[in-house]
């Protein structure tokens, strides 16, 4: 592996995260660092090898906005499904909806599929190319709008541009 500035930066950044993790796992016991420093160094090296640094532009404001959106929506999702479960009459009208994605191919689409499963009323059942199939609890809900919102939030967080045709 060529030693580039990006690799050194990634090594230091990941090393810091692994060190924090080690500190938390060992409850900050000072005696553990003899093993810990070796473990952190190996973990950082292994992570660089398994997941080489890629130029990403994760925006901090985007990340924060996504987190707020996510926590708010998963709260709504939990309340909604609890309401469906606990109300006396079972009033589900499930359906399968297919939505075309505007996110570029790759990990961001998988992230979107996983996110949709935790949002109110939607559950990802299939992802092929730029088509996402969702199982929805309420056939009349504006599923496509919800996917668009989640897409926009994800794209903002990852610094991606959406393919608007």
């Amino acid at each position, binding site marked *: 592996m060529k030693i580039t500035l990006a690799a050194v930066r990634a090594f230091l950044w990941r090393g810091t995260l692994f060190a*924090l*993790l080690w*500190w*938390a*796992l*060992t*409850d*900050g016991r000072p005696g553990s660092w003899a093993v810990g420093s070796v473990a952190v160094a190996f973990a950082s090296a292994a992570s660089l090898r398994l997941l080489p640094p890629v130029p990403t532009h994760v925006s901090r404001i985007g990340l924060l906005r996504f987190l707020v959106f996510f926590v708010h929506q*998963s*709260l709504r*999702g*939990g*309340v*909604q*499904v*609890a309401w*469906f*479960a*606990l109300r006396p009459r*079972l009033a*589900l*009208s*499930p*359906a*399968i909806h297919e939505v075309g994605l505007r996110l570029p191919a790759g990990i961001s689409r998988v992230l979107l*599929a*996983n*996110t949709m*499963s*935790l949002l*109110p*009323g939607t*559950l*990802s*059942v*299939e*992802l092929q190319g730029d088509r996402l*199939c969702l*199982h929805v*609890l309420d056939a009349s809900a504006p599923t496509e709008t919800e996917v668009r919102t989640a897409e926009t939030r994800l794209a903002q967080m990852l610094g991606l541009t959406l393919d608007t045709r």
Partner: protein
Amino acid sequence: MTIADWASLVLLVAGAAFFFAGTVGLLRFPDVYTRLHALAKADNLGLGLVVFGLLLKAPSAALAIKLLLVWLLALAASATVGFLIARRARRHGIEPWRAGDAE
């Protein structure tokens, strides 16, 4: 009891309530997809509330980090596993239940 204690108590009890709703959904919902909705959403919210309830009484920052890590991992696990189960079920031709079908 301090305000933090009360807040913690409310969060923990609310968390348990969502786990209960998730279980009721699991028992009542008619097919694997709707049951996945119940588990993926209600149980995750339940765990989130329990984690934040315990976070308020965490005696050390190290424990707080561990609790947050548990929450993040569990979220990632349910989202991924939920999606994979649903995808497998669909690829194997398990038809979703529709309103009007017998349970």
